[in-house]
């Protein structure tokens, strides 16, 4: 297990450094942040002083060297725009995205699994056909369009939910969260639903396919032959057996929501990490973009580790294999 962990960490460090390098040079080629950051009204000396302060007067390789020196010391650089350490800036936006992602995942699970299992158990019912058709719609319509439609319906036509922003927040462990206030929850619902629609569709299809397959297994018929209630058979015998692929996909999806909730956060002006990333790319705020993507890789590594651990909780056969290895 320890060897496995070390190997995984080694891999992720490699991925992080390769990615940091590519992004660092990539952004250098996109444009010169100086053009955006320097006040053109200033006199030449002041401009040059400002450029020197950001370290942008150095050749790119020297800048990269300074960046690497910082990274080893745990300093991912300081935002050009906000004049604040990049990592700190990102982490200050993390809670907003985190609660958005968590809420969306929750919706995906509590809506997707029951609907999918229903469709798997009663494939001929018109309700099931409706569920499956709906899931295709959820898959295939673009995310931003779904967001706009949600705003149209709930905020413009029916005026029941706010169109954007984070609403009132309350602090938990010193971190502001929206889900702790009613106003915050109302603000949270639409963007979370917007992210969740695709995931719900995904979970529906996975649960449906899994249920249809598992229902045919001998052990399900045997459970019926023992006189177990339908509730017990579906809720324990079938559910446990379909969870593994769902957990895998949800893990990956959680990572991608945390990292790239960009579209939804933009549509609903939700002040999360995704919005920060888009703004930073627009302003060529290189330290923020690089730090952001490194954090993203880190998140994916952690989530995948957790998913692997959850596997062994779900399936005893995987546990035994681990012991032998």
């Amino acid at each position, binding site marked *: 297990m320890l060897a496995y962990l070390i190997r995984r960490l080694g891999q992720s460090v490699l991925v992080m450094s390769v990615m940091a390098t590519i992004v660092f040079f990539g952004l250098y080629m996109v444009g010169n942040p100086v053009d955006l950051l320097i006040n053109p009204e200033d006199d030449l000396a002041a401009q040059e002083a400002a450029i020197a302060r950001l370290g942008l007067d150095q050749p790119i390789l020297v800048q990269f060297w300074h960046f690497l020196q910082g990274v080893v010391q745990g300093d991912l650089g300081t935002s050009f725009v906000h004049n604040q350490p990049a990592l700190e800036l990102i982490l200050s936006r993390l809670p907003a995205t985190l609660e958005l992602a968590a809420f969306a995942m929750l919706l995906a699970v509590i809506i997707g699994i029951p609907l999918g299992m229903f469709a798997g158990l009663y494939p001929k019912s018109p309700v099931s056909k409706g569920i499956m058709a709906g899931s295709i719609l959820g898959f295939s319509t673009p995310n931003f369009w779904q967001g706009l439609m949600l705003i149209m319906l709930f905020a413009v036509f029916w005026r029941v939910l706010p169109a954007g922003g984070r609403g009132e927040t309350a602090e938990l462990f010193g971190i502001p969260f929206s889900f702790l206030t009613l106003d915050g929850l109302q603000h949270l619902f639409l963007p979370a639903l917007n992210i969740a629609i695709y995931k719900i569709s995904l979970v529906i299809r996975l649960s449906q396919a899994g249920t249809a397959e598992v229902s045919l297994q001998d052990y399900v018929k045997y459970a019926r032959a023992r006189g177990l209630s339908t509730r017990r058979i579906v809720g324990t015998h079938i559910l*446990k057996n379909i969870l593994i692929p769902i957990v895998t996909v949800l893990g990956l999806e959680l990572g991608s929501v945390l990292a790239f909730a960009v579209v939804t956060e933009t549509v609903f002006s939700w002040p999360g990490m995704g919005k920060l990333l888009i703004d930073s790319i627009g302003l060529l705020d290189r330290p923020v973009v690089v730090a952001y993507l490194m954090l993203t890789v880190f998140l994916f590594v952690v989530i995948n580790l957790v998913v692997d651990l959850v596997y062994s909780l779900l399936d005893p056969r995987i546990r035994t294999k681990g012991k032998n290895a």
Partner: protein
Amino acid sequence: MTQPVLSVRNLTTEFHTKAGIVRAVDGISFDVGPGEVMALVGESGSGKTITGFSIMGLIDEPGKVVDGEILLNGQNLRGMSEKKLQGLRGDRIAMIFQDPMMTLNPLLRIEEQMVETVLAHRDVSKARAREMATEALALVGIPSPAERLRNYPHEMSGGMRQRVVIAIALMLEPDLIIADEPTTALDVTIQSQILSEMQKLMAERNTALIWVTHDLTVVAGLAHKVAVMYAGRIVEYADVDPLLDQPIHPYTSGLISSIPSSVPRGQTLRQIPGMAPSLLNLPKGCSFQPRCFAASEQCGVSRPDETNVDGVRRYRCHNPLEVA
């Protein structure tokens, strides 16, 4: 005669498929008394497994029991509400499946699967249910049963798993056990152990047993009665000894002489030519007629009715073999 535990009358089960109606079980009747073992013998596709599932009420779409009565202790199971049937399954009628590797849920401990079965039928505490499970495991000869309860199915061998399944079947002392080729997937030594244990337990507890099998060698030492099935019908039914010694139906005779030990070494085994017919497209007249060595013209014209020999033994054949 004591009242039979199970009395099946004219049971007919059909599958309505796109290709047509398949009559998998075609008007079969038999009784099984307490402590009695009946072997249901036939080739693959003869309808013996479907008979078992029909009795359990576990026929799924597109299949349906379309006719007949299934009386368990005089109570008709056919037309009984699903709720009531659910209460009987696992409690009064237990079933043992063919492949022990596939029968137990791989993600649940043996304990959980046994305890849930008890709790589905008995109003007892979890601790008591666990005790009953331990006792049942000990009964079927599983060493250190309390520890075995903590195992997952994949931590046990096939023979062990089948013992667990048998233990679950016996645990609530049912009136009837339907065993669907329970030893086919096991190797021969384990097979004979399990056979003799089952036989002993059935006799001790006066449980009725239907043993579904394609293997006549198993039947001799185990069963009291034998029903031979072909294409959904019982073609011959008799006490075990007369049936094996002097088969009346040519099909029974063919089955017996295809057992390797039935002929002297070096002599070619007699086999039944051809294959079991597709139920979608049964031959005219007697279903067995194209493969039968005794077939006459009449066999291709009309289906043989049942002939009752002596109140017990019966057969369906136009040209029965001579009984000395």
